[in-house]
């Protein structure tokens, strides 16, 4: 580089390994791929322009911005003009749900979401209710899937929007989104999908599945944090929720974060090229963990759908053990996992998804989630299985509940 500094970026996998950490919480956060960081750097320094400026420096930025938009669009089978960059996926969902509802209020005031939605969508729906909209929640089955029949039963003349995640970030269940899209086809009801958990793990093609709106996140395909996008199908009208200088066709004001957008595009290119092989590799690691946990740990169960599930997700529950205690114990063993237990949440409520699946509170408290990703290795499963059976055993020995659920013969 011109200032003489040589940039060395450590491989995230090596960094974790040298720190002795097995990271199995890719659902919560992912490292930015060092190749993405390299692509971003020039746009922080020499190519720093504002795409709105009329001079040459601004033109360089405009070109880079529009080129990046095309590359992100391509990963999802979209047209460049259908991509609106936002400050993260939560913002994209706000724009999609609040923006669509406000813009289309004259058509009706009823919105349907599923009971499995991410907390961000649940809270956006609550806000809509405060604004006078009616919100209905479509139930999910034992494995966390929405039933198209039950969703259809909730459609009224006033329904304008259905919001259904592509897949659950928690239990990993993939929703029958194509079926729901088909169901809504021709009704005039828009379909929004929060695709964040599914990105890079299952194919998402807006050419194949006629969704109207799609919330996307850059970090979930190993791009930088704090950047997302909303796919808005051509002809679908949304009102902006963030007002200002009118960037992004007036739908998302604020000067574009060019370096991050270029990073998102670089991440999209890498994902397009590497996804099939990466998914199979990650699936093999996940399958091994599921197989071993269920075989080696008594009274353990897999939550979510046995087949329709994200290839990187393993979500368990263990009888008579509490989730936060498991996560804390695993932390001591250098293993990063997460839980849907009440004691780990800000509200002390257990995971709404698990409760909607029909689990009892005490079962939801005993959940433990592992999610794998680009730098996961087969050895990670060995490390987890060196620690996990002992952790469960130790906590069960402390628990007054375990003996009552364990058969002792007579």
């Amino acid at each position, binding site marked *: 580089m011109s200032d003489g500094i040589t940039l060395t970026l450590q491989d995230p996998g090596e960094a974790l390994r040298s720190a002795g950490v097995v990271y199995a919480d890719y659902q919560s956060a992912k490292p930015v791929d060092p190749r993405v960081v390299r692509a971003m750097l020039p746009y922080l320094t020499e190519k720093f322009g504002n795409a709105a400026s009329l001079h040459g420096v601004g033109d360089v930025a405009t070109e880079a911005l529009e080129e990046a938009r095309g590359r992100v669009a391509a990963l999802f089978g979209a047209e460049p003009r259908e991509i609106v960059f936002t400050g993260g996926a939560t913002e994209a969902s706000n724009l999609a749900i609040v923006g669509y509802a406000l813009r289309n209020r004259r058509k009706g005031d009823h919105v349907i979401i599923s009971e499995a939605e991410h907390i961000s969508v649940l809270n956006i729906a609550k806000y809509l209710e405060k604004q006078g909209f009616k919100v209905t929640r479509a*139930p999910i*089955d*034992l494995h966390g899937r929405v039933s198209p029949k*039950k969703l259809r*039963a*909730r459609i009224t003349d006033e329904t304008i929007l259905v919001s259904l995640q592509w897949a659950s970030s928690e239990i990993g269940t993939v929703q029958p989104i194509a079926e729901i899209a088909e169901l809504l086809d021709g009704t005039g009801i828009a379909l929004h999908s929060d695709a964040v958990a599914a990105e890079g793990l299952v194919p998402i093609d807006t050419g194949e599945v006629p969704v109207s709106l799609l919330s996307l996140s850059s970090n979930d395909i190993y791009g930088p944090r704090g950047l997302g996008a909303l796919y808005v199908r051509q002809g679908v009208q949304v009102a902006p929720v963030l007002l200002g200088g009118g960037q992004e066709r007036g739908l998302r004001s604020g000067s574009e974060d060019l370096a991050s957008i270029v990073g998102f595009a670089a991440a999209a290119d890498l994902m397009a090229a590497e996804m099939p092989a990466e998914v199979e590799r990650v699936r093999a690691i996940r399958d091994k963990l599921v197989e071993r946990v269920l075989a080696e740990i008594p009274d353990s169960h897999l939550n979510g759908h046995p087949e329709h599930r994200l290839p990187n997700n393993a979500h368990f529950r263990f009888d*008579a*053990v*509490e*989730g*936060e*205690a498991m*996560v*804390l*114990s695993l932390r*001591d063993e250098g293993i990063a996992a997460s839980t849907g*237990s*009440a*004691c*780990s*949440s*800000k509200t*002390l409520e*257990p995971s709404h998804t698990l*409760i*909607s*699946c*029909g689990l*009892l*509170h*005490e*079962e939801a*408290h005993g959940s433990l989630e592992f999610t794998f990703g680009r730098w996961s290795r087969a050895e990670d499963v060995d490390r987890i299985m060196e620690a996990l059976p002992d952790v469960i055993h130790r906590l069960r*020995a*402390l*628990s*007054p*509940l*375990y003996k*009552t*659920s364990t*058969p002792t013969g*007579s």
Partner: protein
Amino acid sequence: MKSTQYTEKTLEHFRNPRNVGTLEGENVAVGRVGNPVCGDMMDIYIRVSPDDTIEDIKFQTFGCGSAVATSSMITELVQGMKLDDALKVSRGDVADALEGLPPIKMHCSNLAADALHEAIKNWREGVGPEDAKKTPGGTACHPIPAEVAAVEIQNLDAYEGKGLYRRVAVDELPKLADERVVVLDTGDRSAQLAMDLTDHTGRVVLMTSGKEPSVSPAVRSALRLSDVKVLAEAQPLELLGEGELERIRVHDLNEDEEYELTADAFVVLE
């Protein structure tokens, strides 16, 4: 502050809990507080010497890191104390001894102090360990157990043929494959049906308003070996759902709270 931002002292007690276990024999009393529904449950056992001193103390806890640490800490604090002095050990004392707890976890120290106080109360009132465990003491998270009364289930008839079953014939069992089935405890026959159902679906709940299902000892041990999930102290109040059964509104008799349980089928045998 993160709910898991514990002090080193708290983590140390979680990793190496003191006085884990149970006590048996003469001069033993136990205090049980909490409820698995709430996510934490504690048993504290005390052995009291003739001069009213806590001679030995043990605990068992189902719960998060702070639930384990507060149980462990309180057993250390009161070991060897006179009962009257032990009663003065407050919730705040436990949290202080652990050098603080995250605000959201303060209720855990309530549980530990309550369990100890409950054990002392049971000792003084001559309540034996087995009886004590059947009636958990009241705490902030778990108020007074509600009275069990005959309650009519609302909307029962409306879901006839739409998720409500008054009888399930053997050849009808496969129809319930992969459904979430809740069977109301009406004795041995209902428990037997619940067990038969586990061959067809992974999700069978036997709901009883009692502390345990009202079944014969033989059926009880069979039930324990089965995949049937027993939901105790639960009174169904109302069936809910668009067109067909989707949820059951339930009165949790232990916490005196209402919640909704997701279900596709509800079996109330005639």
